């Protein structure tokens, strides 16, 4: 008994140290970033598009818009393809083929992001420039690269969600005369909804936070993109581009950018979790 308690205590300490790491990071980012936000004011920081560190102008509005736009674009691509793949692999695909395809898709998650960025720069960017116009480095290119990057996350978690739906739901629906497609979208997808939302949240987390691949294909301009072919700058690429050189207020402004990113991710996660929880509750009814 004594031994059990000692082990439990040790495990608790380890668990707490992991969480306190998170707490430390949070405190550090806010300590470094908040003073500048307070000094510039919400209008001068969040809602200004004037980013010019030399002139002490730190407006990140265009980057907030940039981050949100490419994340939305990536989630449209990632969800359409990821969920489509998950449905095919769990319901319509021969088992033998699914056994080959699923590990292949998961392998996509193991490719380093710089490789995705490089492929984007040498194939997608010139393609967009030659066939659609604009500089090629664009919202579209970034969304495609990020969409492919979130694909494995969305697919594999959606597959797990669909697989966990009891077999009897499917059989019952077929027995009532529904076609396979009707059973899929009216029964299976509804029942797996909360798991699918969770898949999208996790994918979204990766898309908002991705940096390296984004720097390479987004163009890093300081204007708000007005068409999908316009370049943009995201919050993450702003931090990474300028961190190496920044000192003084400029450095604080980059930490303030990190604070903004942190808060946006929290808001997205809380919103998505609330939706997911509501889904579970309506399932139980």
């Amino acid at each position: 008994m004594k031994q059990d308690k000692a082990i439990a205590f040790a495990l608790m300490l380890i668990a707490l140290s992991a969480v306190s790491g998170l707490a430390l990071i949070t405190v550090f980012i806010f300590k470094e970033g908040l003073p500048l936000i307070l000094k510039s004011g919400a209008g001068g920081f969040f809602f200004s598009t004037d980013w010019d560190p030399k002139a002490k102008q730190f407006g990140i509005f265009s980057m907030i818009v940039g981050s949100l736009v490419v994340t939305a674009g990536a989630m449209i691509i990632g969800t359409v393809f990821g969920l489509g793949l998950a449905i095919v692999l769990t319901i319509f695909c021969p088992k033998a083929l699914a056994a080959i395809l699923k590990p292949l898709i998961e392998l996509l998650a193991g490719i380093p992001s710089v490789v995705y960025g490089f492929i984007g720069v040498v194939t997608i960017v010139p393609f967009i420039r030659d066939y659609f116009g604009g500089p090629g480095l664009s919202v579209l290119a970034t969304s495609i690269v990020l969409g492919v990057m979130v694909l494995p996350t969305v697919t594999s978690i959606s597959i797990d969600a669909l697989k966990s739906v009891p077999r009897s739901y499917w059989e019952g629906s077929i027995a009532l005369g529904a076609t396979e497609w009707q059973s899929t979208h009216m029964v299976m997808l509804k029942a797996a909804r909360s798991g699918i939302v969770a898949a999208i949240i996790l994918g979204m987390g990766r898309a908002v936070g991705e940096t390296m691949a984004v720097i390479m294909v987004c163009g890093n301009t300081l204007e708000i993109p007005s068409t999908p072919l316009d370049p943009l700058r995201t919050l993450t690429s702003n931090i990474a581009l300028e961190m190496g050189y920044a000192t003084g207020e400029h450095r604080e402004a980059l930490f303030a950018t990190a604070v903004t990113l942190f808060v946006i991710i929290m808001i997205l996660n809380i919103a998505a979790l609330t939706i997911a929880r509501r889904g579970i509750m309506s399932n139980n009814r």
Partner: protein
Amino acid sequence: MSLKGLRSVSLFTAAFAIGVFCAGCGGKHARAVNLVGSTSVQPFAEFLAEEYLTAHPTENVEVQGGGSTAGLQAVINGLADIGMCSRSLTEEESPKFTATVIARDGLAIVVNQSNSVTTLTTEQLRGLFSGAIRNWKEVGGHDGPVRPITREEGSGTRESFVHLVMAKERISKSALTQESNGAVKELVKGDSAAIGYMSLGLVGKELKAIRVDDVEASRENVLNHSYKLARPFLFVAQGPLRPDAQRFMDFVLSKEGQQALESEGLVRAQ
């Protein structure tokens, strides 16, 4: 993780490793001469170090990137013996350091091979990069948009360009921003609307360097000061150098070292 993040992490790791190394061998071996700074100077410093170490195998020189400002910071923190800087020091910085010009580098204005424009004035350049000139037609080229490509805030190349060309004007907000000479090159190579600036030594044959104020961007013209867009490459230190660092510095400034730099496309200091 970003390249820059990696760089600073590797910088810390290197500093840590050096510390452990020194502790481990009880100070029998001196630590390496450490150079940190501008990514524009880095390839040339690496080349010099290679030449130097071939001739003097007992010496030890290490070169790392990170950017001009990061290099100065590393000198202040004692992480580097010599900082590499690809721009003139600011008024604020210059009293704190002793800077030695090891070479000069031209800043080439580059466009795509298919662009028919061959010469521009400094004023036209300012217009092209500030967004005042939006069509190549206005400077005698084809009818099409201008896409200026700039470097990230804090880059020595960017600071030199702003200092030499932009004067008080700001670089357009819609200018594409790339984080290395290589990335600028890659973009200009594929985009007939693009205009960028980069180190003269790195232009190569795939891009076209523009004549500025009717002077060709060449090493001869940088050396005789007729090509105006040139910047110094500095080795920066605080206080007297360690003997082994001083020996390396002497090599760089020797005839041999200067010739090595010239063979790599730079222009000698004097």
